[in-house]
């Protein structure tokens, strides 16, 4: 399964970057989200994956023992998901506003050429 996940991560990274290189702002945003998913999966995979053993202490027990999924990558990813949501929602609204102002979704139209530096 790890191999499949690794392939998936590679694809997510590649498509994320590819979408970021498009001219449309919406595609840029989608690319960012895909890239974020890829990064989350990478962290998840590197912590080691375990099937069917969530890091929850069972009824009547005091410590988690035996085989269990690593809680640290999980809490890291949880934080990452939430923070990236903040970023995404702000970016979406900002995008809308840019669209209302200049009536285009094309990044090229946003460039103001700097003539004198």
């Amino acid at each position: 399964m790890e191999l499949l996940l690794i392939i998936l991560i590679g694809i997510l990274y590649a498509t994320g970057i590819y979408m970021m290189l498009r001219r449309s702002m919406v595609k840029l945003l989608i690319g960012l989200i895909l890239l974020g998913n890829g990064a989350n999966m990478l962290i998840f995979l590197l912590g080691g994956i375990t099937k069917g053993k969530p890091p929850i202490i069972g009824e009547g027990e005091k410590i988690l023992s035996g085989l269990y999924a690593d809680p640290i990558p999980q809490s890291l990813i949880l934080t990452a998901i939430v923070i990236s949501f903040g970023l995404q929602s702000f970016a979406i609204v900002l995008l809308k506003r840019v669209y209302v102002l200049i009536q285009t979704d094309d990044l090229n139209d946003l460039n103001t050429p700097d003539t004198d530096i």
Partner: protein
Amino acid sequence: MISAVLSGFLFAMLVLLFGKYVKGKPAVLTTLLPLSLFAYFLGMLPAVQTQPLLFSYRWIPSMGIDLNFKLDGLSLLFSLLITGIGTLVFAYASYYLKGHRYLDRFYCYLSLFMASMLGLVLSDNVMLLFVFWELTSITSFFLIGFNNDDPASRRNSLMALAITGGGGFLLMTGFVLLGTLAGGYSISAMLSSAEMLKGHAWYGWVLFFLFGGAFTKSAQFPFHFWLPGAMKAPTPVSAYLHSATMVKAGVYLLARFTPVLGGHPYWNTTLLIAGAITMLYSAWHAIQRTDLKGILAYSTIAALGTLVFLLGVGTAEAMAAAAVFILVHALYKAALFLVAGILDHETGTRDVTILRGLRKVMLPVAAAGMLAALSSAGLPLTFGFIGKDLIYEATLHAPAYGYILTGIAVLTNILVLYAGFQAGIRPFAGRLPEGFRSVHLPDLRLWVPPLILATLGLLYGMIPALADASLVQPVVQALGAVSPAPLKIWHGFNVVLLLSGVTLAAGFALYFIRMPSARHQLAVDRFASLSPETLVVRSARGFSRFSTWYTNRLHNGNLRSYVHIIIIFITVLLAYKLITGVHLYFDIRTNVAPITVYDLTVFGIILFAIWKTVSTSSRITAVASMSVVGYCICILFVIYSAPDLAMTQFTIDTLTVVLFVLVLFRLPRFLRINDRKVIVRDSIISGLFGVLIAIIALEVMNEPTNKETSRFYAENAYLLAKGKNVVNVMLVDFRGFDTMVEITVLVIAALGVYSLLKLRISSSEKE
């Protein structure tokens, strides 16, 4: 001691505060500061004869930087020059710049400079020395550019700052290197590790950086050109900074480090060559000039070259000659500058082809000029004669190439003699032209200072014992050499006397035969395109053009080009590292969890969704497919024991899609931009990057993971925090503060979203 150094800084601030009172008559009162400091250092004279005085104050002990001051013969000679000539220059300037709009600023800079220079020569810690060193460069910049409405003045002050500042940079590198090698920044402590330093593999580099600092400051070829440019400063400044004190800081530095680093072939040869080239080059240039200050500037460079040259010879005799010559030169050159300033002030010109016969209207000035010129020529009974004698003796007895070195010294002296006469005698000789009849003797404050300096030159020349035991011998001791024979006027008939005679005869002959003319200067100017100055200016322009091009290229404001650059750079860097240094392997048998039908199904759906996201031309399809990717990842979380993640991912993904659709559904379809080349290029770049990330992930999988922290949380989640969901407990309890900050970030984002949605667009914004 510390108050002596800091008083100048305090004074500078006070002058600015009470500026309007200083500008009038009381300007001359500013003289009291250097005068009292001069008296203070004069009082130190007897104490320093026997051993150096040390003063120590703690400053930054953790970095080995302390306010350590050391007063030995060398420091004292410089301190006396700084405060003594400072006194005269302060008084001189009070009349020279009488009624100037920015007189208070001028005194502020001048006392800042004096304090920095004192600090420089008294510091016993290289870092402290460096701080003062830079301060002198900065104050020099302000003083050169004092007439800031003159473009040439501004340009030259920048040039001086660029050259000396660049040298300061080298010097700092040298000091850090030296401090690391010696294990401390104290110069006194470095003395004990002198042998180790000289044998060290990095000795050459230390010298390179140290010389870089010293040569730029002391205007050695090929960094000499800032000094003639610095003559744009008011004349008192030229006399003070650019002849008597600041430009000698480089020489001081070399002298200070002679006991530590000197005596090595690298040291001696470099100094000899640099000094000799500077001497000849600038002495030859000095006689081509027609501007008084230009002549003096080049002859000052020649004198600095001579000092460096003498330190390069390195024998005890050469050290004594250098010590005497520092004093000789400071006395006569400052006097000549001040005389030049008077001529400029009273007649309005500095052209030696015009100035004639002025002795008839300003006799005391003529006397000062003549005495100074004679001292510079080295006529018997002047202090210059003793200085020149010592130089010839030192070169004749040099360890190698004695005759060549003597030849160079004689030639330089002949030219310098001519330059000195040009500046000190020719303006006063001959018939007074009609135009100058109305010129009259200026105020006391202008002509007394040069006369004092010139007379001192004569006094020391007639009674050398005055300067010998008190000033010269301690310097030689501080340089780590054996005290030479006492100074004498008469050494009997020998080669040195013959050489002196030859110098004088040739110089006099040259003076009477060769008239100053603008032709000479024009002839020299034809080679201006080859001069180091032009090269520096050109390379500075070229560099500025290059950096503009480079900045425009990299910072073109195009997001995609930034992403390109970053991704390509990372890919190439990591790929290089992977190819050269990492052994790629992956053991399929041990590391792999079995693939079930659920896994395969989810994987298939994700692939399809990703493909759809990328390829579709409909915005809504793209967003929907993207959310499918998110939900599939959510299922993967469920399968692989991360229920919290699954819940979060599910919620967030849903919210994102809702927001997308709500806000963006009215946008048009994607632009169809079918530039095949661009698509292929971007596919290759992103594909390579994806492969690279996959390979890295594969490699990391081979490394065993450290589970110690995880175990801590797993064991203590219930015991310490009374929670059974470990991930949950970590977020809200163990790492509670992080979560709080995270919530704050979300709140800020939410506020941003809300205000952007609510903000009404005014008509002016909507073009």
